[in-house]
């Protein structure tokens, strides 16, 4: 895993993003909110490494602070979705019966009849902008994938000999689930979480691009791309740099997911996503 250059690249990219997110005020050369109207729409230079935007704000500093929102939203959405999905999927898979039917047939199927990003868009359209609402909107559709995965894995594990043996020994439900079944369910869930991080970052950037994410003046990569659109002719750097950073971030999490899959879950070593 360590020798693969793509994996190394993904570690490097994710490391840089995390560093930017955690230490943005220390790394950013300038205040990302400070407007310098006389210096607006400058090309990259030694003073402003990635140029300035239409209000004369330093694009490089805004990119660094933008990583903050991406990481914050990405990790929160995945953490919430994972927790809910693990709980609901475990209950449905472990106990089966009516509970499973209700969760699987009614709740999951109705939520899936609305594609994930559209569900989030519809929620945000009515809830209004804000980082908390954004995280909520993305998590409402986000947990379904984990729940389905966990349910399937648990259904499979339930029939295994080691589970039957533990049951025969009189192990209680909670202990059986936590100590015996979960360790086998967790690896594929981690793989999905890595890919899900890329997905959540993409979704956040999409909503911010549409003006439905975190409201300005907070810098977000999607919002910066949207601002850049008005200046495609006179300041193309405002489009190119945020576009590249979103792409590299998502690419990095996809590589990470692939690498983790090879490492953790040889059964899934199929050659598509």
């Amino acid at each position: 895993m360590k020798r693969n250059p793509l994996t190394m690249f993904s570690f490097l990219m994710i490391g840089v993003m995390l560093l930017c997110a955690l230490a943005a005020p220390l790394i950013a050369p300038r205040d990302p909110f400070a407007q310098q109207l006389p210096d607006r729409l400058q090309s990259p230079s030694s003073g402003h490494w990635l140029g300035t935007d239409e209000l004369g704000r330093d694009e490089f500093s805004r990119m660094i602070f933008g990583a903050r929102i991406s990481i914050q939203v990405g990790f929160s959405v995945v953490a919430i979705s994972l927790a809910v999905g693990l709980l609901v999927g475990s209950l449905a898979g472990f106990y089966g019966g009516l509970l499973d039917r209700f969760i699987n047939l009614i709740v999951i199927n109705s939520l899936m009849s609305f594609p994930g990003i559209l569900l989030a868009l519809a929620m945000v359209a009515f809830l209004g902008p804000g980082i908390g609402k954004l995280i909520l909107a993305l998590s409402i559709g986000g947990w379904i994938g984990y729940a389905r995965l966990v349910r399937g894995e648990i259904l499979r594990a339930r029939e295994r000999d080691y589970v039957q043996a533990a049951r025969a020994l009189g192990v209680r439900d909670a202990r059986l689930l936590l100590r015996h079944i979960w360790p086998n369910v967790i690896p594929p869930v981690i793989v999905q979480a890595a890919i899900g991080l890329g997905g959540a970052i993409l979704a956040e950037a999409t909503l911010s691009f549409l003006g439905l994410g975190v409201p300005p003046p907070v810098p977000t990569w999607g919002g910066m791309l949207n601002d850049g659109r008005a200046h495609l002719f006179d300041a193309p750097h405002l489009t190119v740099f945020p576009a590249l950073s979103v792409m590299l971030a998502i690419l990095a999490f996809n590589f990470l997911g692939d690498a983790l899959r090879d490492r953790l879950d040889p059964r899934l070593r199929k050659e598509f996503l």
Partner: protein
Amino acid sequence: MKTFSLARTITERILYALPVVFVVATAVFFLIHLVPGDPVEQMLGERAQSGEVEALRRSLGLDRPLGEQYLNYLKKAVRGDLGTSFRFNSPVSGLILSRYPATMQLTLAALLIALLLAIPAGVYSAVHRGTWRDRLLGFVSLLGLSFPNFALGPVAILIFAIALDWLPVSGYGGLAYLVLPALTLGAALAAILTRMVRASMLEELGQDYVRTARAKGLGEASVLYRHTLRNGLISVVTVVGLQFGALLAGAMVTETIFSWPGIGRLTLQAINSRDYPLVQGCFLAISITYIVVNLLTDLAYTMVDPRIREV
């Protein structure tokens, strides 16, 4: 007998889709109640007079009890009446119908581009499995998957419309206007489908019937395209259906970037002007489209693959 079972399957599938439409319609109805505070005040803004607020509330039916609102909404929706747009001052269903063709044109063009790119690329990759050409295509498709449409669109405009001056920047008109938006929208799907086609081709190429076809002395092209691809495409059809939702969501971004007069851009305009009846109508139309497309792919699947029909 055969036609009878096919007709029954089709009827069954349609009957399965109806409750889903009902659930979606219900969800869309309740969306307006997610608005923090008073939706009517939100729509009119701070300067509204209280008389105006009450008048709009009455005309939207929001002064009635919730149960009555819901029943009225369902009754009207069944007749195709989705209320009146507050900004455009015209019926929501008319607005949606007038923008619908542009979105269909865009999404179908994107789908066509994705298939035209993905099928040859996936087959090529599978045939040359493990070579540098396979790895290169794999890398390109991963890039395509990671380059979001809202980043790809502006970059495509920069390259093809501004630097090279081959295509128009944005707008709606002839075929030239369709190229960049359709490419932008279809790129991610092309990447996903390339991986799918490759994987299912690899699976099919290991099957006995392929060995039989080769043993009969059929040419490689005939083995690949007449025998293997046909079976390989079955699983691809399902993915196309599921991914159509992503295309419809992507249309919102793409139409905004390229000023394409479709339902996605209409939705965004409606959201920005807090025209809630129009937003509800747009989301309803988009989700019903998604459900119908999935129903159609399901049916296509049934007709292509006789094994499913029997079950």
